[in-house]
């Protein structure tokens, strides 16, 4: 069976720096794989390269059996980028943002049942009643859930998520874990970038760990390093100013060196 995601010797250079140095990766159909690594290890760049958001210097990527490009069945792939700022120019409602997820290369206008699909997707992430609310009025975690709904609205077979629970309020984290449990039970393939396994640990079947732009582990989910799991560990993220504003709704772009 062809894997849902296949990467061979992927090399990505951004601004003259080799961010990914020959990454091999494969995710089978129906598998839930976590992509772990310290900040700056290249995990975010890797998923962005896999979905075509970042150009690849050399190497090959196949999504659902097709080489990256026009022929990929994009309508079956849902991507959730790292949280963006809500304050993007003109105001937009949660429903409008989710509706944009219904479009793909062969569909430039929303289908007739759009409104119903949008409501169903917002329902999945527990935001049914916010369809007509401006996104800028939602909390950081709720905005993240809107972005997840935007990926789910097309009912994807493959879901690619970039740090979906980083700096997200607790109810949103729980809602997300429930949604993901439901999706995996229905046989969806999930590739998720995580800072730590956390609440998703029971779902994750395999973990790939990146370090300095290369895979250093591919197999059973690793246990966190001692200093992270110790009772006296003071969990500070000096690189992540987002976290302290997590539920104020004003959290901006995440810092990723």
């Amino acid at each position: 069976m062809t894997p849902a995601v296949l990467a061979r010797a992927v090399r990505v250079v951004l601004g003259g720096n080799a961010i990914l140095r020959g990454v091999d990766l494969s995710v089978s159909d129906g598998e839930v794989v976590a992509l772990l690594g310290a900040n700056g290890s290249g995990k975010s760049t890797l998923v962005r390269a896999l979905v075509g958001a970042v150009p690849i210097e050399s190497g090959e990527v196949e999504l659902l059996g097709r080489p990256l490009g026009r022929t990929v069945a994009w309508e079956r792939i849902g991507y959730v980028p790292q949280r963006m700022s809500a304050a993007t120019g003109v105001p937009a409602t949660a429903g409008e943002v989710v509706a944009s997820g219904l479009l793909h290369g062969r569909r430039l206008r929303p289908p007739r049942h759009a409104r119903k699909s949008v409501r169903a997707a917002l329902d999945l992430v527990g935001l049914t009643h916010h369809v007509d609310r401006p996104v800028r009025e939602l909390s950081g975690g709720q905005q993240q859930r809107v972005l997840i709904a935007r990926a789910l609205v097309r009912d994807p077979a493959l879901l690619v998520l970039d740090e979906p629970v980083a700096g997200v309020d607790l109810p949103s984290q729980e809602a997300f874990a429930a949604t993901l449990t439901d999706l995996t039970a229905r046989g969806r393939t999930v590739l998720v970038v995580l800072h730590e396994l956390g609440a998703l640990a029971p779902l994750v079947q395999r973990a790939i760990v990146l370090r300095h732009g290369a895979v250093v582990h591919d197999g059973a989910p690793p246990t966190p390093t001692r200093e992270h799991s110790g009772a006296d560990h003071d969990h500070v993220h000096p690189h992540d100013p987002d976290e302290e504003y997590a539920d104020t709704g004003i959290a901006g772009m995440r810092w990723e060196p």
Partner: protein
Amino acid sequence: MILDEIAGMLGDPLMQRALLAAMLVGLAAPVVGTYLVQRRLSLLGDGIGHVALTGVALGWLVGNAMNLAPHDMLAVPGAVVTAVIGAVVIELVRERGRTSGDVALALLFYGGIAGGVLFISLAGGTNANLMAYLFGSISTVSSADLWLTVVLTTLILVVGVGLRTALFAVCHDEEFARAAGLPVRALNIAIAVIAALTVTVSMRVVGLLLVSALMIVPVAVAQLVSGSFRRTMGLAMGIGVTVCLSGLSITYWNDLSPGATIVVLAIVVYTVVALARPALQHNRPHDPHPHVPDDVDVDVDA
């Protein structure tokens, strides 16, 4: 009395053409403006406007060389072609991300004005010949101009309104649009092209120096009071038509520049709405804090 005056204005064929042109421009400019504001490129219209001036002068130069009468017959087509090329080049430069946006715009501003003045002097004209294009000359709209306006406006509205969700997706989150398999480059170029067409269409009504105001100010007003993208665009179109028609009507009775009157009127509307907004929102108090349950258990009564 007043009705007679209005009937008189509407009966004037010159005024009929001018009003129709103003209405179409008022309808189309905010559509494009919504996308430009969305991607924080409010000054792009200005950049394209400056480039279009070079196009006007080039059209004039070619018309002169070919001994066409009148000399400025090719000025508008020249502006259309040059503005479209300029807009696409800006988009490609932006996509590469090599030159920062404001430097690219600065190059366009000064290159466009200097090119326009240079070519018009080569054509044996003077800067005075450019004034009509810089500040608008709606009273001289001919039937041919009007037809071009109708065709181009229809094109702008079909693309700008018909592909609203797709263009919104690209402007809202380009990375997601790419990952969704949307033809991002084609959609970006579509926005650049309809922006260029809007600039040349609006040139006769408000002039190249004020084109951008007609694209941006109605959107700025609309987003003060609207929470959705669709409503912002619709409201901006309504405001655009209203200020264009009322501004032009004012100049029928008062000897004022139509372009400047329209833009000043739009800015007055913005100021009034911005000042009245706190009062408007007073009726519907909005708690800025999101509705999220507490992370910790607290006894509020204690």
